[in-house]
């Protein structure tokens, strides 16, 4: 029994261990950042590797905590994303006074995400959700003296607090109607009574805020622009992926009796989300803001995959998010390096980047191709499977609409590629010497973008893990 607590909670223990090590380093003597950073990245790498061994299925704490092969893989994806973000932040953190606090906040957030992913009870789910948002709000404020950073943190904490209020009201109504909080017992009680529909809508709006689906997206662009680039990368990849993983499994198992309701809801939301994300992305000039709206549009495509409600739907969502980790982090990596070294953030500044920084230009180009969905890159296969899964319901109008929007999205992604390769610039960015850790991270991202689409074992592997819905 005691071994169960050790093995089933293995990934959570690893994170907690790293948190304590960092806390002791913080309390002890001052160690220069340059010696500390490789060690921390090594620890995170070890953390990622530990997820691949000694995995078991099981439940703990009276069904509050559950784990299985699919959840372990989802946690591995999040660990991988955290490692890549940490490697890319090397240049920025090297001169930073509060290096350890940065890792403490992000690791606490990811611990919360793990508990949220593994939750088998609405109480546990709520605790995990809050544990994963409150530290991130503090991390958004990490550039203490910058005006934009504090404004972004304020916007984030107020809107996330409001969204969790809505979520809680939904949970309280579900509890009042059914008398249970367990995921395994809820489906037996749920019906399409109006109060259940209302509480489901409240719960879903809580989710909508976290994944920034359209009626709830207004905080996204401001927070992404104001936060330090590494925190923006964390928000747009790790936070979003974790909530989407939970959303899929909650919709497919707990809210299965309300399938008709959430299908119509997702139908509507995905259309609005894709259109709004695309239209606003066209008019952006700041690269971080641009990536914010592009990520909103991507969420719209993911929601199409979610709406399928089948094993293929779940597989395509997880597969797409894995690819999204690689392609979005490659884009954010380049933006963060150029932002940290040259302090340039707008598309005009990126003109003629190819002449001085061919490597960074190629990485950003391939990442943007993958986000847009150009065939040899993985992004194409991700989008293809999402739309395939969505079309299983026979709603070809939605698929046609999404495909047309893919064409619009090509315009704004290729606009940046054009600026980097073709436009002249009188004051181009100087050549940037990239340190080895960020360079390695970018190369891993590139390898992921190019390989993940062509290795079809990956899709079949994820498909086999998503059985038993």
């Amino acid at each position, binding site marked *: 029994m005691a071994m169960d607590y050790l093995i089933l909670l293995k990934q959570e223990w690893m994170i907690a261990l790293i948190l304590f090590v960092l806390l002791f380093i913080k309390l002890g003597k001052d160690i220069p950042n340059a010696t500390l950073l490789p060690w921390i990245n090594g620890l995170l790498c070890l953390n990622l590797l530990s997820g691949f061994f000694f995995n078991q299925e099981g439940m703990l704490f009276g069904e509050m905590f559950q784990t299985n092969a699919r959840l372990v893989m989802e946690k591995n994806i999040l660990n991988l994303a955290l490692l890549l973000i940490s490697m890319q932040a090397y240049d920025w953190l090297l001169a930073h006074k509060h290096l350890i606090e940065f890792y403490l906040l992000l690791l606490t957030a990811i611990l919360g995400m793990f508990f949220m992913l593994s939750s088998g009870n609405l109480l546990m789910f709520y*605790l995990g959700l*809050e544990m994963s948002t409150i530290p991130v709000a503090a991390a958004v404020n990490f550039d203490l003296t910058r005006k934009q950073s504090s404004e972004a943190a304020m916007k984030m904490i*107020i809107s996330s607090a409001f969204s969790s209020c809505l979520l809680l*009201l939904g949970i309280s109504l579900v*509890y009042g109607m059914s008398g249970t909080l367990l995921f395994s017992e809820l489906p037996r009680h749920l019906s399409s009574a109006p109060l259940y529909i209302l509480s489901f809508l409240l719960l879903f709006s809580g989710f909508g805020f976290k994944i920034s689906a359209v009626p709830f997206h207004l905080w996204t662009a401001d927070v992404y622009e104001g936060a330090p680039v590494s925190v923006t990368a964390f928000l747009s990849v790790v936070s979003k992926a974790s909530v989407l993983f939970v959303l899929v499994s909650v919709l497919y198992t707990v809210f299965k009796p309300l399938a008709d309701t959430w299908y119509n809801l997702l139908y509507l939301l995905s259309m609005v989300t894709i259109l709004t994300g695309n239209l606003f992305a066209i008019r952006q000039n700041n690269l971080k803001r641009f990536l914010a709206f592009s990520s909103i549009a991507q969420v719209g495509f993911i929601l199409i995959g979610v709406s399928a409600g089948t094993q293929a739907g779940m597989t395509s969502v997880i597969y797409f998010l894995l690819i999204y980790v690689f392609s979005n982090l490659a884009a954010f990596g380049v933006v963060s390096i150029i932002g940290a070294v040259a302090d340039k953030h707008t598309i005009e500044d990126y003109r003629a980047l190819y002449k001085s920084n061919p490597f960074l230009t190629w990485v950003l180009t391939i990442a943007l191709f993958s986000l847009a969905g150009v065939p040899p890159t993985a992004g194409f296969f991700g989008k293809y499977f999402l739309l395939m899964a969505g079309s299983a319901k026979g709603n070809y109008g939605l698929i046609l609409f999404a495909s047309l929007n893919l064409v619009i999205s090509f315009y704004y992604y290729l606009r940046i590629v054009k600026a980097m390769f073709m436009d002249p610039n009188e004051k181009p960015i100087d050549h940037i010497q990239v340190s080895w850790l960020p360079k390695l991270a970018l190369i891993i991202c590139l390898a992921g973008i190019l390989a993940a689409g062509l290795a079809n074992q990956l899709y079949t592997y994820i498909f086999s893990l998503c059985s038993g819905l």
Partner: protein
Amino acid sequence: MQGIPLTHILFVSTALFLIGMYGLFTRRNLITMLMSIELMLNSVNINFVAFNKYLYPDKLDGIFFSIFIITIAAAEAAVAIAIIINLYRTHTSIDVEDATEMKY
């Protein structure tokens, strides 16, 4: 206890929730906005405790949930107030109308 039906309590909690929501949308001072959020959280607490007491008196799920909500609300308020203090340092104001660095 005997004379008060559950619907009365639910009415109070819903009213509190809506008052909190109204306050959040109309107030411009960040501290007051934070107070409105606390109001909304507390109305959910009333919901949980009332449901537990009236409908499922043999289990304690609702009461425990409300204890956790109180704890999380404290954590959230701590971080939010730290952020507001920092906002005051950078903007010399805690009025949301003054925090307009970023717009469309």
